[in-house]
């Protein structure tokens, strides 16, 4: 589904990612792990087109997305969350979820100025979709709260919800469990399973928490210093000598 081929990225002489290749298959949960500074988030930023690649190619559903504009990525069906949560802070949870449906907008400016019946109809559709997500993630009690008044754990969940509003085919989760307590983390692992199985969304995530990775992922890619170390099932990877090297250093 997503194919990354020989991608290299550097920032002013620092090689963040070097000759990385991997592919994500439809329907799976694919995790990337690695020590800090291994270039995991850069991989995400490259896929969502916030960073340019120096060399290499990225294709999604057999279409080249290496050069498209960042906002087109969402329209192709790739949604993402951010490591440190990038929500629309001054708005309510509901509004955040509504903004998440921007890609499905059908109305033009002029009809919106007069709020024609079709705009109202579309608003109602957006709303019921947002309510579905609220039900799925148990966000009912936060619906009308502004985001900047919510605890960090809830914000992370809201961000996942907002990404789901896009109806994505591929969901990129950047360290979904960081900043969550063990209980929230466990809830999260169930939700990730639900999202994957019930909504049929392919998931790719960057994660540190070996527990979470072990519970949900089908395959794991380990990176170190911007390079590919090993790819395999969680249990294969965990005992692989190169991985132990990468973490402990030799």
């Amino acid at each position: 589904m997503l194919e990354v081929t020989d991608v290299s990225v550097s920032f002013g002489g620092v090689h963040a990612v070097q000759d990385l290749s991997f592919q994500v298959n439809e329907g799976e949960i694919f995790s990337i792990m690695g020590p800090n500074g291994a270039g995991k988030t850069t991989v995400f930023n490259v896929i969502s087109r916030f960073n340019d690649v120096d060399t290499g190619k990225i294709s999604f559903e057999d279409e080249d997305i290496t050069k498209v504009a960042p906002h087109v990525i969402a329209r192709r069906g790739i949604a993402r969350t951010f490591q440190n949560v990038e929500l629309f802070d001054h708005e309510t949870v509901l509004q955040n979820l509504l903004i998440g449906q921007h890609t499905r907008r059908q109305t033009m400016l002029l009809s919106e100025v007069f709020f024609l019946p079709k705009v109202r109809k579309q608003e109602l559709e957006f709303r019921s979709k947002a309510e579905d997500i609220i039900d799925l993630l148990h966000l009912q009690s936060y619906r009308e709260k502004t985001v900047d008044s919510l605890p960090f754990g809830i914000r992370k969940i809201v961000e996942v919800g907002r990404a789901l509003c896009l109806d994505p085919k591929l969901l990129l989760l950047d360290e979904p469990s960081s900043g969550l307590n063990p209980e929230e983390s466990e809830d999260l692992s169930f939700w990730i399973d639900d999202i994957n199985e019930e909504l049929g969304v392919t998931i790719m995530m960057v994660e540190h928490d070996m527990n979470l990775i072990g519970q949900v992922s089908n395959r794991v890619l380990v990176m170190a210093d911007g390079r590919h170390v090993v790819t395999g099932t969680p249990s294969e990877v965990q005992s692989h000598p190169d991985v132990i090297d990468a973490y402990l250093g030799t």
Partner: protein
Amino acid sequence: MRFVLKTNYGRDIDIFKHRAHASWYFVLIAALLLAPLVLDVFYEKQLTELFIWAIAGAGLMLLTGYSGLVSLGHVAFMALGAYIHAILYSRGWPLFLSIPTSALITGGIGVLIGVASLRMTGIYLAIATLAFAMIVEKVIAHWPALTGGHSGFRVDDPAMFGYSLDSSTAYYYTCLTALVLVFFGVINLLRSPTGRSFIAVRDSEISAQAMGVNLLQTKTLAFALSAGLTGLAGALYAHRIGFLFPDAFTIMTSIMLLMLVVVGGLGSLHGVIFGAFFITIVPQIIAIARDWLPTGIAQSGGLEPLVFGGVLILFLVFEPLGIYGRWVKIRLFFSQFPLYRKKTFLRQKSYLKTERVH
């Protein structure tokens, strides 16, 4: 506290949240419609000016309050609107064509600035718009063939379909109509995807893009709409002052507009009205205060900038949410009495948030 029973999602989309809400606005509109019957000409003119400021303020609010793009040069759009309309009108265009045309052209110029704005963030944009306003001011002053330059430009009396709108009452209704239409459009826009994309760009450009919002399109649109509305206000203002000259549109006007949105309350349309009220009434208060002050201070031309500057600072330091924010707090105080908690609105104090990367 009032709890509204909502039985379908449409209730959240409606402009008026409950019946009392609607009836209050109905009363307000009725009062404004009847006002000319009881008010004398002076107050009528003041209210007309308030409407014009509110239209321009709605324009700037869309840009600064909702899209997070700061413009220090909005006076340029106002001046452009005023001059374009006055020139077209003097060449025989009918009023109902020349006003929208001037708003459209101004909006088009806004598009240019909007495209440029993609390359600049925050403060840089503010400064670029300031530079733009400076240039527009000089162009107007140094192009006498078209604008009359420093000797000014007489605006013909407003008339439509053979009816003169020159009387203060007729013009009052003209501006009130324009204001109501503008607000209707802006409210609708803000509760539909376009308005949400503005807010998305304001709060986080990165995640707006990740949600599929086209930055270029959104910012350009915000600038175009904002410039167009401000141009419309400028065109209406042209008839209000009757005589255009470059010094009528200085940086001071830009600052007044910014003050309007800040003092009124960023990110709220109520704030626009509060802010417009504020900047119309303050000069009157100052005029009255002059009689009470020692002559040395009263005669000084600096009194108005002093008060405006001072009030602006006080609001930013003590009530960044503006008059509307204060109003929300007062309302909450009474509806929750005696359980109001002062800290409800307290936000976490942040450390210096750097935009630099080292």
